């Protein structure tokens, strides 16, 4: 298990602690810059990755045994694909509250996945009691 952020190639592994959010962000944003991605797209992807890493740490690793989170970034022609993985107990993506419902409007939480879905072109959620892997893609020029 890593004790601090470890980058190897296109992948960063962090101990499950919110203090490492900025390390993931630096890694993702600099990789996207090296692809020549425009600023607005970088922001959309960075926002989405931060949502998923927050969730992996706060909801995922909390319950699991392996307290680390990995984030992998790949370029495929004119799109970028990012995969965030934790080893928690998973969740049921069908059971999420609707953040647009009146009774949830003033809740401080519950908008993360909703925002990722609206900013990204595709969101794939694989989740079981052994962990969660969420893969997002977004077109870049």
């Amino acid at each position, binding site marked *: 298990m890593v004790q601090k952020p470890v980058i190897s190639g296109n992948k960063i592994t962090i101990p499950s602690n919110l203090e490492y959010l900025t390390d993931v962000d630096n890694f993702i944003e600099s990789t996207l810059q090296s692809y020549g991605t425009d600023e607005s797209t970088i922001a959309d992807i960075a926002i989405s990755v931060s949502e998923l890493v927050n969730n992996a740490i706060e909801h995922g690793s909390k319950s699991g045994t392996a307290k680390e989170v990995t984030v992998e970034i790949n370029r495929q022609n004119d799109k970028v694909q990012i995969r965030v993985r934790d080893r928690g107990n998973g969740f049921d993506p069908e059971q999420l509250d609707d*953040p647009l419902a009146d009774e949830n409007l*003033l809740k401080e939480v519950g908008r993360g996945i909703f925002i990722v879905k609206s900013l990204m072109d595709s969101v794939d959620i694989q989740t079981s009691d052994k962990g969660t892997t969420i893969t997002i893609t977004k077109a870049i020029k």
Partner: protein
Amino acid sequence: MKLSDRQQNGVIILEPRGKIMGGPDATLLYDKLHEIIESGNKQVVIDLSKVDWMNSTGLGILISSYTTLRNNNGELKLANITDKIQSLLTITKLVTVFDSYDSVDDAVKAFK
């Protein structure tokens, strides 16, 4: 995120800077807000001009600032919402919650 604050005509202006992505960010703004309320100031503007981007944690911080001030007979206004934040507020329907202004001066004047 970094946070600075100042006063203008009895209104407190909070100016977060950088990216609001979670972790310590929430606590920082929360503590500042409670310091403000306990010192008797209840009119607050959050100036968003220097925020690169925020995620749902950032939205949660804005909501908690809004409700905390309201429940203490105070009021929150937002100023200088960037395009990125505007689109988050729109898709989450939070535009209907916040009072927002094109400049800090306009927001401060609106408290009169």
